[in-house]
């Protein structure tokens, strides 16, 4: 081997030329029996490898089967729990929405859930694909207010869903946060007081929660930007982003409701 080793580097550059190839090949010839020997030496491990390979095939099947079994059982359990809890989850949300509508709108006497219509995209069926839906509250047949089910993606979390109510002349009568993922203890404070729209004392209190400052606010009369941005909205301490997002969503909701009911677009928008 030690004598062959210097030959190999000398033979390899020569391998390109045909003439010296044959002697190099002959010189390599005696090494040939060595190679099968080496191969033979390598063969038993490869044969030995085949045994665990066959074993690993069985093991692979076992792995796949175990994972399949576990995921199947998990899926079945989740399907069961989902079916058990779904009506309850929906039911838990519906009274919340009805109560919220009653709280954020002026007093009405119509079955408000039936007035639901999609306003964005305008005229679409009010199903899951509809982005923004509107309710119309009437009393003695005359409209007294509107509510928009809307959302904003400008908060700290991915999405804030909210219900904005206004009177027939588009003054805010209430805002209800349907869902959000703002930071607990900080941005999550946007929900504080959102059930207190019929509580005049809470709205008038000097330390009222953030959301109640929008009571009675109108487009054009109130600047819906936070004070930091030059507006009139008092932001929640350390939660400017959430405060800005909700204020902006309320303004957008008022604009949209005005546009969809009176057909007037823009106008007094600041």
């Amino acid at each position, binding site marked *: 081997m030690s004598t062959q080793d210097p030959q190999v580097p000398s033979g390899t550059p020569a391998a390109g030329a045909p003439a010296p190839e044959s002697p190099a090949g002959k010189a390599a010839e005696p090494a040939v029996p060595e190679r099968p020997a080496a191969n033979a030496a390598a063969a038993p491990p490869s044969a030995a490898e085949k045994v665990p390979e066959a074993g690993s095939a069985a093991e692979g099947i076992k792995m796949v089967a175990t*994972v399949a079994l576990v995921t199947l059982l*998990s899926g079945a359990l989740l399907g069961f729990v989902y079916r058990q809890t779904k009506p309850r989850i929906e039911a838990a949300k519906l009274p919340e929405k009805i109560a919220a509508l009653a709280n954020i709108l002026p007093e009405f006497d119509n079955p408000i859930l039936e007035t639901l219509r999609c306003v964005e995209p305008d005229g679409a069926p009010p199903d899951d694909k509809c982005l923004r839906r509107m309710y119309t509250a009437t009393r003695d047949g005359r409209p007294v207010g509107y509510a928009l089910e809307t959302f904003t993606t400008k908060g700290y979390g991915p999405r804030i869903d909210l219900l904005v109510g206004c009177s027939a002349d588009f003054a805010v009568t209430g805002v209800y946060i349907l869902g959000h993922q703002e930071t607990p203890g900080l941005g999550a404070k946007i929900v504080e007081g959102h059930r207190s729209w019929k509580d005049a004392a809470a709205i008038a209190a000097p330390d009222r929660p953030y959301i109640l400052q929008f009571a009675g606010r109108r487009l054009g009369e109130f600047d819906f930007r936070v004070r930091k941005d030059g507006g009139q909205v008092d932001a929640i301490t350390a939660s400017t982003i959430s405060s800005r997002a909700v204020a902006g969503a309320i303004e957008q909701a008022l604009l949209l409701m005005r546009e969809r009911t009176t057909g007037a677009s823009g106008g007094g928008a600041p």
Partner: protein
Amino acid sequence: MNQWQNFAKGLWRENPILRILLGFCPTLAVTTSATDAVGMGAAATFVLVGSNTVISAIRRIVPSQMRIPIFIVVIATFVTVVDLVLQAYFPALSKSLGVFIPLIVVNCIILGRAEAFASKNGIGSSLIDGLGMGVGFTLALLVLGCVREILGSGSIFGVPLFAADVPRVLIFVLPPGAFLSLGCMLWLMNELDQRRKRHV
């Protein structure tokens, strides 16, 4: 080790937060109020007990190379169950804890106990271990949540403690407050432990 010791080790000697220092993400994030702390603790305890029990039950049929994915599937299943049940029966708590419930899946305590205990021990012991660890986790969260809520919001379990004009130390409900309070708790824990050792 008898089952009482097995349970009690999670409370102090091997407390997942204060001794093993695992699961800091929910610890720092949801301890802004005592209520949230208890809710998170209870949810994590349920997941721990459930996953420990199931993982212990299937430990002999799980190929060792596939154990982590399988453990995660089991844990994720329990977490989703908790999430759905909370949404259905405790909508307020579910809203308040928000995204941190789904994030229990990646809580290191749960995979840690699956790997370190449930995959090597019997069903009964694993159940008790999960319960002890869960209660230890909940207690640590509760103490931290109380401290932060009292100092930062001036209330406990949402009930105001001081008049509205008493200033609140806002930093305690902010993320830095979480680190400060937890740091102090760990210091106190180590101090007590060393004193006890000196006495012995």
